[in-house]
C-alpha cells in the first residue's frame, strides 16, 4: 500500500478514537472523512485487500435490512463481511467500515456495502464490486437528487462503471429498476414475487413510476404488490417485467413475521422471517439473489434468513415498564404507507407517536408527509406528533381528520417520550414511527430507561 494511503488510514483512525474519547459522535463517518481528505484513493487501496471482493447494495427503501440479511447469510457461509453501519452509506461511511474491518479475524473477508443511490457512481470505480444489486426506486429525499428520474440516472451511471464480468441483481417487479438491466452483459439476475393472494387492485397511493421507461407510454399492471411494484407491461413498445430467476410464492404475512416459499434455480425452500410486511419479502429476495450470485448454497441462505433479526428501528420491539414499544422507521411516502398498512393489521385502538425530523439524513424537505396516505390509518386512539417538524406532522394529521382532541404536539423528545409513557398503560402497545435521526434520538433516551442495549457494537459506534 502506498505511503499516502497508510498515512490517511492512520490519521482517520486517530480522529475516530479522539472523537469517541470526547464523545462527539460522528464515529461512523469521521475516520473515513479524514482519510479521504488526505488520500481520495483510500477506498480503492483498502478494497483491493478484501479476499472475496465486494458487493454493493442500493435502493430507496430497505438498504439496511437487506444488507443485514446478506451479512447474516454470508457469515453463515463462513465469510467475514466488512459491512458499513446503518445509514452511514456515503463514501465516508464506506471508507470508515473498510478501515475498521481490515485485519480482523482469520475468516476470508468480503465487502458488503449499502450505498446511497447518488454515491454508487462515486464508489463503484474504487470498489470494483463483483455484484451490484438494486432493490427499488421510490420518491425519497428528492431535495438531494432532484427528481425520481434523476435517481435512476445516477444508479445507471454507477452500473456503467462496473468491472468486466460483474453481476447485476435487479428487482424484476420494479419497472424503473428492471429497465436498468437492458442490454447489460452478463444477463442480470432478476428476482420478484409470484403470489396471487397479496396482489392489490387499482387505486394505490404513492406511485412513482407510471410510464414506460423505454417509450413513455402508460404501463398496465396485471398484478400490483405495492406502489409501482408488480407484474407490468407496456402495450405500446412491449417492455415488460423480465422473468425472474428467484421468486417468492405462497406468502403468509402477519405483524409478527412473514412466511413464504423461496424458489431458486437450485430448488425450493421454506422461509420464515421474523420481520413482517411484503417489502421485507422483497428485501429477503434481494439478499438471497446477491448470495446466489456469489455462489452461496441455497440451504445456507435459508438458514441465514431464519436467523435474521431486524436492525434497530426496523420493526424492533422494546419493552419499557411492561409497555411494548414498536419502532418502525419511516423515511418516505411509500415507507409511511407500508407502516400504516402494518399498523392496520392490529385492529385494536392504537397509541401512535410520529417523530419527524428534518436533518440532512432525514431529508430536509417535509413535503413527503403530504404524499403519504395518512387517511388510511385505522383505529387511532392516542396520537402524538413529535420531532423537529412536530407541527408539520400534526397539521398532516389534522387535515387527515385525526384532530378530534386525541392529537398532541410536542417537538421536545424528552417531553414527548414522557407524555407517551404516561399515556400508554403497562401491558399496552405504543407504535413509534420516527424518521432516521428521530429514531436515533428516541433510542438514545430509551437506552437510559434500560429498554435498549448500548449502541456500541464490534466494528464501531452505530451512531
Amino acid at each position, binding site marked *: 500500500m502506498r505511503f499516502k494511503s497508510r498515512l490517511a488510514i492512520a490519521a482517520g483512525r486517530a480522529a475516530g478514537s479522539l472523537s469517541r474519547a470526547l464523545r462527539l459522535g*460522528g464515529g461512523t*463517518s*469521521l475516520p473515513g*472523512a479524514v482519510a479521504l481528505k488526505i488520500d481520495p484513493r483510500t477506498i480503492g487501496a483498502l478494497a483491493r485487500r478484501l479476499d472475496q471482493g465486494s458487493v454493493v447494495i442500493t435502493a430507496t427503501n430497505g438498504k439496511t435490512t437487506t444488507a443485514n440479511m446478506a451479512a447474516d447469510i454470508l457469515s453463515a457461509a463462513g465469510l467475514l463481511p466488512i459491512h458499513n453501519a446503518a*445509514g*452511514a452509506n*456515503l463514501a*465516508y461511511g464506506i471508507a470508515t467500515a473498510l478501515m475498521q474491518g481490515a485485519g480482523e479475524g482469520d475468516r476470508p473477508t468480503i465487502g458488503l456495502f449499502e450505498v446511497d443511490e447518488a454515491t454508487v457512481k462515486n464508489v463503484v470505480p474504487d470498489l470494483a464490486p463483483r455484484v451490484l444489486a438494486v432493490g427499488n426506486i421510490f420518491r425519497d429525499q*428528492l*431535495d*438531494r437528487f*432532484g*427528481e*425520481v*428520474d434523476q435517481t435512476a440516472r445516477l444508479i445507471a451511471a454507477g452500473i456503467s462503471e462496473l468491472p468486466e464480468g460483474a453481476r447485476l441483481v435487479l428487482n424484476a417487479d420494479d419497472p424503473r429498476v428492471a429497465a436498468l438491466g437492458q442490454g447489460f452483459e452478463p444477463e442480470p439476475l432478476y428476482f420478484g414475487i409470484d403470489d396471487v393472494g397479496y396482489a392489490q387492485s387499482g387505486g394505490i397511493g404513492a406511485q412513482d413510476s*407510471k*410510464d414506460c421507461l423505454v417509450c*413513455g407510454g402508460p404501463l398496465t399492471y396485471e398484478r400490483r404488490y405495492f406502489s409501482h411494484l408488480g407484474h407490468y407491461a407496456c402495450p405500446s413498445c412491449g417492455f415488460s417485467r423480465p422473468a425472474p430467476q428467484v421468486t417468492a410464492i405462497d406468502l403468509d404475512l402477519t405483524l409478527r413475521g412473514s412466511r413464504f416459499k423461496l424458489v431458486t434455480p437450485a430448488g425450493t425452500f421454506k422461509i420464515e422471517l421474523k420481520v413482517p410486511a411484503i417489502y421485507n419479502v422483497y428485501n429477503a429476495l434481494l439478499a438471497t439473489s446477491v448470495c446466489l450470485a456469489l455462489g452461496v448454497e441455497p440451504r445456507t441462505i435459508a438458514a441465514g434468513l431464519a436467523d435474521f433479526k431486524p436492525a434497530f428501528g426496523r420493526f424492533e420491539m422494546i419493552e419499557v415498564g411492561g409497555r411494548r414499544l414498536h419502532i418502525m422507521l419511516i423515511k418516505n411516502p411509500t415507507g409511511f404507507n407500508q407502516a400504516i398498512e402494518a399498523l392496520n393489521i392490529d385492529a385494536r385502538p392504537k397509541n401512535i407517536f410520529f417523530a419527524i425530523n*428534518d*436533518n*440532512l*439524513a432525514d431529508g*430536509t*424537505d*417535509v*413535503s*413527503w*408527509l*403530504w*404524499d403519504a396516505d395518512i387517511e388510511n390509518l385505522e383505529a387511532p386512539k392516542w396520537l402524538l406528533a413529535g420531532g*423537529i*417538524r*412536530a*407541527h*408539520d406532522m*400534526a*397539521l*398532516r394529521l*389534522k*387535515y*387527515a381528520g385525526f*384532530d378530534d382532541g386525541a392529537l398532541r*404536539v410536542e*417537538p421536545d423528545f424528552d417531553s414527548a417520550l414522557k407524555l407517551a409513557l404516561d399515556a400508554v398503560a403497562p401491558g399496552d402497545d405504543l407504535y413509534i414511527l420516527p424518521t432516521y*435521526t428521530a429514531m436515533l434520538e428516541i433510542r438514545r433516551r430509551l437506552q437510559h430507561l434500560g429498554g435498549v442495549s448500548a449502541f456500541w457494537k464490534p466494528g464501531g459506534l452505530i451512531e
Partner: protein
Amino acid sequence: MKTLRLAHLYPDLMNLYGDRGNIIVLRRRCAWRGIELVVDDVSIGDDLAGDYDLAFIGGGQDREQLLVCRDFQRRLDQFKGMVDGGLVVLAICGGYQLLGRRFLTYQNEELPGLGILDIETVGGQKRLIGNVVVKVKLDGSERLLVGFENHSGRTILGPGARPLGTIERGFGNNGRDGTEGARQANVFGTYLHGSLLPKNPWFADYLLEPALKRKYGDDFSLEPLDDGLEDAARTAAIRRIEEIHRRRWVPGWFKR
C-alpha cells in the same frame, strides 16, 4: 349547500413534493365552512368539461411536463377563456413554468409554454433547493408564506405579471432579483412546495374567496377558522429555517 368546482390538472403526471396537500387543504377548509369542493381530475385525453371555479396544477419532472404541454394545446383556447372569465388558478413549480411563455432548457432547447403568465424560464445547471420564506403584500397587508423550493429553472417576469412576493430566505424565481412567484389577475404561480397551503392557510382562503364571490356575489365572505395549529406550524417552520441558516457552515458529515 354552496359548492365550488376545482379542476385538478394532470394529477397523475404533475404531483411532486406533496403538491396534492394543497387540494386536501382546500377541500377541508371548504368542508369546515359547509361548502362542498368538488375536485375533478383532468388528465391526458380528458375533457375540461364543467363550470370550474378553481384550477390547480402541481410540479412535475421534465419528461412529464413535456407530455402535459403537448396535451394542453388542444384545450388552450378554452382554458384561456376560463381564465379571462375569472377562474382562480394556482400553479406550483413545473406547473408554474408551464403557464409561462416559454422554457429554455440548459441545452438551449426551446419548449413553448401556454402563455397564460407573462414569464419566461431558463434552465440552470445548479438546482435551487431549500426552505423559503416569502414576504407577500396583497390587499395592502403584509404577510408571510413559508415553503420548500426545488427547481433548476430560473424564471424572469415580463411586464404583464407581478411578483407574488419578495424573498426573505431562499432563492425564489431566479436567485437574483429577490422575487418569488407571479400573479396575473386570478392566476397565481409559485415555486413553493411544502405543501404550500397547509402552513399558509391565509393564502388558501385568499384563493377561495374570489372564487366564492364570483359565484355567490360580492357580499360573500369566508367565516374565519381556528388556525392555531397552522399558525404555530408556520412560526415553527420559520424558526427552524432561521436556525438552519445560522448553522450553514457546519460540515455535512458532522450534521448526520
